[in-house]
């Protein structure tokens, strides 16, 4: 197929310029009268010399892109998969491709932390929409100026409510070989934790400039990730902390159930590294010896996690992030007890859930250097951690957050939004409440009306 010249009309779109020609498609910048924002048109390369995969992945993208929403996917504009010249048009994402950030010496920790959080949040947003990307890699990620990540290229993606055109492809694993999860190699396309593995490979590459499993060509090489432990990040980058390696190597666990239970928990780990328990994964500093590799590779164990029985959104909703608003001035035993029971019931229902205990201190002016502020913060932290300890929840399943603000409701809503909180638990207001620090009626009302999740208002029975 010939490259389209600038000025060529394709339905209501006019070709401006060819941006990219590789793999199975051409990418053009296009314009149309009705839309002022920059647009991209993807046209698959057709013909006997093109792999069947190209057209199938184009069909998948045309099916999935229109049903996706949110800031982490390009906005769908139009598609005509049946035309002689099939195409899909989407908004042009303004940002930098993550591949530009892959440097031989790696990125500094703060950048890695920001990117790790952003990719994990973006993946969680997809999983909540019943979609698994299955081709996460630096080439398919764009970082916007506000550090939000946008996924592009949904050609290998799986949407549990749409027919999967790659559902039974015994001949070839679908995805980019350096990044795909072990279960993808064994043709399992239903596990959102597969995206986590690819995020792990991406972060390893951003940290070290190297790919943890190289660029495999044969199936035997591809399957090495079932048993081969990559060179420790800290061997290549001793300046990076153990918690970073712990996070990345958790993502790279060959068995999906040993990874984070959801990418929301992965994002949480990046935002609160103090809560990470460092295991042998994080402490490892030397690569396995040749002898160990030979023994492991002699009779490699190819073990795969069971195929999930639920859709991606159901799977991630089983791993809820729960936030509880705690008023440390609350002393009525029946109210404290009611709140604790509500938290424990919510945690017990979901064994992989995570609890964020929020103590929000209202201050007259945000950011002002008050005398005694540090001491107050420290005192609140001790009390909040004591409150949490009484619940007997394992340390890795909960975290304490002291937030000082002028607007308690807004700060809680922002926290819920930024951390993909699934439910906020808050004590109902009391009629006689007069405390300045108490969660007041307007805060609870605003949370119920404006929070991006469920709000459980707890009131003790009389």
């Amino acid at each position, binding site marked *: 197929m010939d490259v389209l010249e600038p000025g060529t009309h394709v339905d209501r779109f006019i070709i401006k310029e060819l941006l990219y020609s590789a793999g199975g498609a051409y990418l053009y910048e296009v314009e149309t009268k009705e839309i002022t924002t920059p647009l991209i048109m993807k046209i698959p390369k057709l013909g006997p010399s093109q792999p069947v995969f190209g057209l199938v992945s184009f069909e998948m993208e045309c099916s999935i892109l229109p049903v996706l929403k949110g800031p982490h996917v390009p906005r769908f504009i139009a598609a005509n998969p*049946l035309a002689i010249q099939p195409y899909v048009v989407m908004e042009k994402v303004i940002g930098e491709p993550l591949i530009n950030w892959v440097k031989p010496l790696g990125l500094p920790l703060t950048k890695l932390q920001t990117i790790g959080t952003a990719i994990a949040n973006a993946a969680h947003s997809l999983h909540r929409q019943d979609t698994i990307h299955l081709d996460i890699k630096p080439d398919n990620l764009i970082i916007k100026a506000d550090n939000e990540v946008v996924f592009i290229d949904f050609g290998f993606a799986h949407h549990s409510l*749409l*027919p999967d055109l790659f559902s039974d492809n015994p001949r070839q694993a679908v995805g980019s070989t350096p990044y795909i999860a072990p279960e993808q190699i064994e043709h399992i396309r239903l596990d959102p934790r597969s995206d986590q593995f690819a995020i792990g490979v991406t972060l390893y590459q951003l940290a070290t400039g190297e790919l943890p499993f190289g660029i495999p060509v044969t199936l035997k090489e591809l399957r090495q990730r079932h048993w081969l432990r990559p060179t420790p990040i800290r061997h290549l980058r001793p300046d990076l902390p153990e918690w970073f390696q712990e996070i990345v190597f958790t993502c790279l666990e060959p068995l999906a159930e040993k990874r984070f239970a959801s990418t929301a928990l992965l994002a949480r780990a990046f935002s609160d590294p103090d809560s990470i328990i460092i295991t042998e994964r994080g402490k490892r500093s030397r690569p396995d010896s040749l002898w160990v590799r030979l023994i492991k590779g002699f009779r490699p164990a190819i073990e795969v996690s069971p195929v999930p029985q639920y859709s991606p959104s159901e799977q991630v909703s089983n791993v809820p992030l729960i936030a509880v608003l705690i008023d440390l001035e609350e002393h009525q035993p029946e109210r404290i007890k009611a709140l604790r029971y509500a938290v424990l019931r919510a945690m017990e229902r979901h064994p992989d859930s995570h609890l964020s205990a929020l103590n929000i201190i209202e201050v007259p002016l945000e950011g002002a250097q008050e005398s005694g502020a540090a001491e107050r913060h420290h005192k609140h932290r001790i009390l909040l951690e004591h409150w949490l300890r009484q619940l007997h929840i394992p340390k890795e399943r909960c975290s304490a957050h002291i937030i000082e603000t002028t607007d308690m409701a807004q700060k809680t809503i922002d926290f819920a939004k930024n951390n993909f909180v699934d439910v906020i638990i808050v004590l109902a207001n009391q009629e006689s409440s007069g405390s300045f620090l108490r969660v007041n009626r307007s805060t609870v009302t605003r949370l119920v009306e404006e929070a991006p999740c469920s709000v459980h208002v707890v009131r003790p029975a009389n």
Partner: protein
Amino acid sequence: MTRIALFSDIHANFEAFSACEQHALQEKAELFAFLGDHVGYGPDPERILDRLIKYRDEGHIVLLGNHDEACLTGPQQMSHHARDAILWTIPRLQNYHFEFISSLPFTYELPPLLLTHASAHEPEGWHYLNNEEEIKLSFKEAEQPIVIAGHVHHQMLYFEDGEKNIQSFIPTPGQVIPLSTRRRWAATIGSLGQPRDGNSASQYALFDNEQNTLTFHRVPYDIDRTIYKIYHRGLPPTLAERLSKGQ
């Protein structure tokens, strides 16, 4: 014309028919295609046939099903419940009903769809379109890329993969599914009047001819009224029990 309501296996269930008709009109259906088995099992065969005659006269599509055919030829090779229901139905029909049934075709081409009650392969043989072999035979027979059928009382979507194998997909009600005509598809759209997947809500589908999308729907209806009629009009009580259980 853009949206086609695909109704099958009404089985003389007027309440289910009315609920789905209303739902389809709300979904902006402009053309109705009735894929056969309009009678049998249910208590309102005359009323349903009268409605379908009107629809046919207005240019909508009405096909023949095996239960309709049995009203003309007798209920040979049917289960005893089906046979009892047909023997109950026949005396209630007028001559013009029989004339209408005898005029109905087995299949209808509405590009890119081939509409049929059972398999597109030997449609007069009433083969169930629910296995790889029959779907492949249907694809071989049909000139259109998408085969739409009823008869099996389950909603299912089948498609041909790159290796020419048949893959199946259980649709979620209300989810719009794009069907690329670059590959072959077959859909069984379920039954309005007698669903058999454990859920008594009516089944139908809507095809958007402009976008090439198929959406499966489930519609609740006044099942108690239908059951009451089955008991009081002398149909076998088992038919009422099956209806309430979605069997």
